[in-house]
């Protein structure tokens, strides 16, 4: 045991003295979360709009009120004619114009349908489509309220059934994704690279020639990086909870257990990679191509798995990331308990056992 403690201590020294790597390992997760959180957010606030109200009845005024109080739109102009709208686009830099036709209230009441005409500034397609979605959502809310108050139901055209919460959606997607990537980088990549470095510089031979158990060498190598990745994960979760208001609906202990189990799976991947690679470059390439890319592409993190050909869907099952992402989303968002996700935990543990067995038999082999 004294040997294991010594190996852990030595590994800690490696980590602490390699200032650049340590900084990167700790800073990258924070940067990733902030980057995804702030820049990739699809939220737009206070977009300037113009409203041409040809109806000027109580319902049209109520709709305009709803739009301007949503926080997403700021009504900056009330043009009288359609030609004035053109002027506003050019001079006031509005993103969108809404034309409410005459007899808006009347149409709603009598014909159960009213039409809104939207004129978009499509020079930025993304902004335009986001604003349209907002508008649809607001109109949807408006009509729901209207229907509650009134006796009969009416509709406003352009209403679609979109759930209103686009920016929340992206938070839900990227936090589990980033946790997955960081755990794989720190646990699998770092431990396999440093193990390969020992092979490259010959210190591995020095270690092997001592009577120390090889299991200690491997465990001693992996544990420090698992701790490091746990720290990173905690930071990611803290930032997403406190900065981006992401809920943790399930048990925090279950979340921790899930992360630790996934870390073991990632670490066992790292061990297998180091068993088959002789140099640091090998280890890096194998981790990137064999683990990192499949994780990015096939975990459902960036690209939905449902739309992929059958072959890739099956392939995705082989990598641990997909199962981890499903489980962590269930715990954080749906608030699932242990018995809802035990299947995924089982899969991750099984993968770890298989990989550890393969790599241990490989590492102990003299040729």
């Amino acid at each position, binding site marked *: 045991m*004294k*040997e294991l403690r*010594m190996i852990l201590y*030595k590994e800690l*020294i*490696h980590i602490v*003295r*390699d200032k650049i790597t340590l900084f990167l390992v700790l800073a990258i997760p924070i940067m990733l979360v902030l980057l995804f959180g702030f820049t990739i957010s699809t939220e737009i606030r206070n977009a300037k709009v113009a409203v041409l109200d040809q109806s000027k009845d109580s319902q049209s005024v109520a709709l305009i009120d709803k739009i301007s109080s949503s926080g997403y739109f700021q009504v900056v102009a009330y043009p009288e004619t359609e030609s004035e709208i053109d002027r506003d686009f050019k001079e006031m830099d509005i993103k969108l114009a809404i034309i409410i036709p005459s007899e808006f209230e009347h149409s709603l009441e009598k014909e159960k349908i009213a039409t809104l005409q939207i004129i978009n500034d499509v020079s930025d397609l993304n902004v335009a489509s986001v604003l349209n979605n907002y508008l649809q959502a607001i109109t949807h809310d408006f009509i729901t309220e209207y229907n509650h108050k009134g006796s009969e139901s009416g509709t406003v055209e352009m209403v679609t059934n979109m759930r209103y919460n686009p920016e929340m959606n992206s938070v839900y997607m990227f936090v589990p994704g980033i946790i997955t990537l960081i755990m794989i980088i720190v646990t699998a990549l770092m431990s396999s690279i440093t193990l390969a470095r020992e092979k490259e*510089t*010959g*210190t591995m*031979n*020095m*270690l*092997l*020639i*001592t*009577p*120390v158990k090889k299991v200690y060498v491997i465990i001693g190598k992996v544990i420090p990086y698992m701790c490091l990745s746990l720290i990173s994960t905690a930071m990611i979760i803290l930032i997403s909870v406190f900065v981006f208001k992401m809920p943790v609906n399930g048990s925090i202990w279950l979340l921790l257990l899930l992360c630790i189990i996934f870390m073991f799976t990632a670490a066992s991947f790292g061990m297998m990679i180091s068993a088959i690679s002789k140099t640091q470059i090998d280890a890096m390439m194998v981790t990137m191509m064999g683990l990192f890319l499949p994780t990015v592409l096939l975990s459902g993190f960036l690209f939905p798995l449902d739309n992929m050909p059958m072959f890739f869907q099956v392939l995705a099952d082989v990598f641990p990331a997909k199962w981890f992402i499903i489980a962590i989303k269930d715990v954080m968002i749906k608030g699932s308990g242990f018995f809802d996700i035990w299947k995924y935990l089982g899969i991750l543990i099984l993968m770890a056992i298989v990989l550890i067995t393969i790599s241990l038999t490989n590492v102990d082999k*003299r*040729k």
Partner: protein
Amino acid sequence: MPEIDIQHINKRFGKIEALHDINIMVEQGEVFGLVGPDGAGKSTLFNILTTLLLPDSGQVDIMGMDVVKDYLQIRQSIGYLPGVFSLYPDLSVQENLAFFATMYKSSVLDNMSLIKPIWKQLLPFKDRPAGKLSGGMKQKLALCCALIHKPKILFLDEPTTGVDPVSRKEFWDILKDIQHKNVTVVVSTPYMDEATRCDRIALIQNGNIIKIDTPNNIISNFRGHLYTVKMDDIFGLMQLMNQFELTCNYYPYGEHFHIAFYDEVEKALPAFERFLQDHGRQYGEIKPITPNIEDCFIELMQMS
């Protein structure tokens, strides 16, 4: 019983036969040298002796223990200094030593006696990262780490390659010291001139042992008669040498020309002088010289 008993070792890597039927016995307390060029099989043999590699066939006993079966016990009793610097460059001198001591389930203080003279020289640098030591100091630290568990046998793989002659001489003095503390030393080197520092040497070439003997015996068994002669335009002479009809080995040696005759000297020497005169060469005195290990190695290589 010999300290190391190597019998009929063979090892192949794919098509390459790295070691072919190696038989060596190393006695307790001797400095045994493995002398040969790069790629001769020295490192492969070292890896087998240090239990890092398994032989394809044959038997190796180290202190009566089998390298294949009893490798864990063997590891406790041997020290190994690899050919390339193999310590942790980011750990300090002290930390490296403590680390390897722990790996051998021992402590630095317990085993100071064997390494004390070397450790004294390292003491001023004890907090310096190992990677920032000079070449000579690195080598001394590596030696300390290899000796920290008081091994019975010390294996050194080309410890002096790329080291300047002064540091090299110092290193060999340290090895002699270790030998006197009852440690068997097995050392490999590509430098022929270092062979004379060993009690016995094995000359190894292309995976074959071509000779095992004491350096003095090897030199006295040199079959040719080696002479030196000082002259100008040695290269010009070398181009003429294929016209010289007697069997000989020759090579340029700075301002001198070295030639080994394989016929009787009474016949060869006058023939050579006549040859030089016939070609109108100016030359100094033709003096007999003692061959060095390199001359012997070349002769043995040509015979085998």
